[in-house]
């Protein structure tokens, strides 16, 4: 599905009637879909994600082709699906504890199988299982399955957790929104301000709140956004100053 969508976007066609009209040039994004730089993907998927990892997975082809390849002075752009892919690869990698020799080939095989089903119009309930040979298998319930050798012993309780993670990823894909770990009031919604991190249930960007907080008190911010919880505003500022923590609650 994501490949089809990327193709549509690259040739300037829209899945949504009436959204792209009257121009012959190539379109990178249809209104309602998010686009992300590599740095923004890393920031949204903090604290374990880094730009370096995303670049590496892009280079290996695990995340598919970027919406726009990077070039000097022009960052590579990724889709919302690719943001979810990066998060999934990270999760599989962390939880299946691959041996160093097995990581790259196993992740490539696993992600190819999983992504083909995770982002399809039809939902496949993916199940993980352990084989007699000690490898890990994934099945889509339609007699399609693959096996990968992690090169390590995998704790049995990890497998249902992975299934739950994939279910959650599917839900995130359907609602076009990811939570930002450690910041319960913040999200990136692909359909809001192009995916820029915002306060949940609003169009208020974390970057804008942090910008205002340089000159406004917390009370001023609350007056400006009376329908937003104080903690959400503080989280926005903390998220933007992550690593500096200069804003005292």
């Amino acid at each position, binding site marked *: 599905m994501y490949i089809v969508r990327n193709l549509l976007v690259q040739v300037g066609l829209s899945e949504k009637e009436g*959204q792209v009209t009257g121009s012959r040039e190539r379109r990178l994004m249809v*209104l309602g879909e998010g686009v992300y730089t590599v740095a923004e993907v890393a920031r949204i998927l903090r604290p374990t994600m880094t730009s370096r990892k995303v670049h590496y997975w892009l280079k290996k082809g695990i995340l598919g082709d970027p919406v726009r390849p990077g070039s000097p002075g022009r960052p590579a752009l990724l889709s919302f699906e690719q943001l979810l892919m990066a998060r999934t690869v990270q999760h599989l990698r962390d939880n299946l504890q691959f041996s160093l020799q097995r990581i790259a080939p196993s992740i490539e095989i696993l992600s190819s199988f999983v992504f083909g089903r995770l982002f399809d119009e039809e939902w496949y309930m993916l199940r993980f299982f352990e084989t007699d040979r000690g490898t890990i298998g994934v099945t889509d319930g339609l007699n399609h399955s693959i096996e990968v050798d992690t090169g390590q012993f995998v704790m049995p309780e990890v497998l249902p957790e992975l299934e739950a993670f994939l279910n959650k990823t599917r839900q995130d894909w359907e609602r076009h929104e990811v939570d930002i770990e450690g910041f319960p009031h913040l999200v990136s919604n692909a359909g809001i301000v192009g995916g820029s991190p915002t306060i949940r249930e609003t169009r208020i960007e974390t970057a804008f709140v942090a910008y205002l907080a340089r000159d406004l008190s917390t009370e001023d911010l609350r007056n400006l956004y009376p329908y937003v919880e104080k903690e959400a505003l503080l989280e926005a500022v903390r998220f933007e100053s992550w690593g500096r923590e200069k804003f005292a609650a």
Partner: protein
Amino acid sequence: MKVILDEQLDPRSATVLNVIEDRHGCTFVSLRDLAPPKTQDIEIPNICKRFDAVALVTADVKDFGAKAVYFEALLTAGVSVITLRPQKRASVLEAQTALLLSWSREVANALRDASSPVLIRVNNSGISTRSLEELVEQASSSGTP
């Protein structure tokens, strides 16, 4: 000519700007008065159409990197975009309103003169206007606009 202020901008700015409506000829209205919070980007063109608005004023305080592409998508959907970017350290809300107030005639003229949706960037030095075609051309030739 109606112009919508995005949810995150201070709705009081609309009130202030409308006091001198006869000078610039625009009626400013906050998105908060037109739609519930969390309005989806895809709903913006229809809201503009329903309320006869031609542009959305939004913040552009940080190089999100992908923002230019987002603005392009709004223009493609038929909505002009006005971004406010005060110089560093002039970041209070009053400064943002003052920015729009200072250049309201120029912004209104640019909107009136445009034959198709445009991106209007406003900063302390003035305004710059780009059509969709110019944005796409700029983005494909060098860095982001």
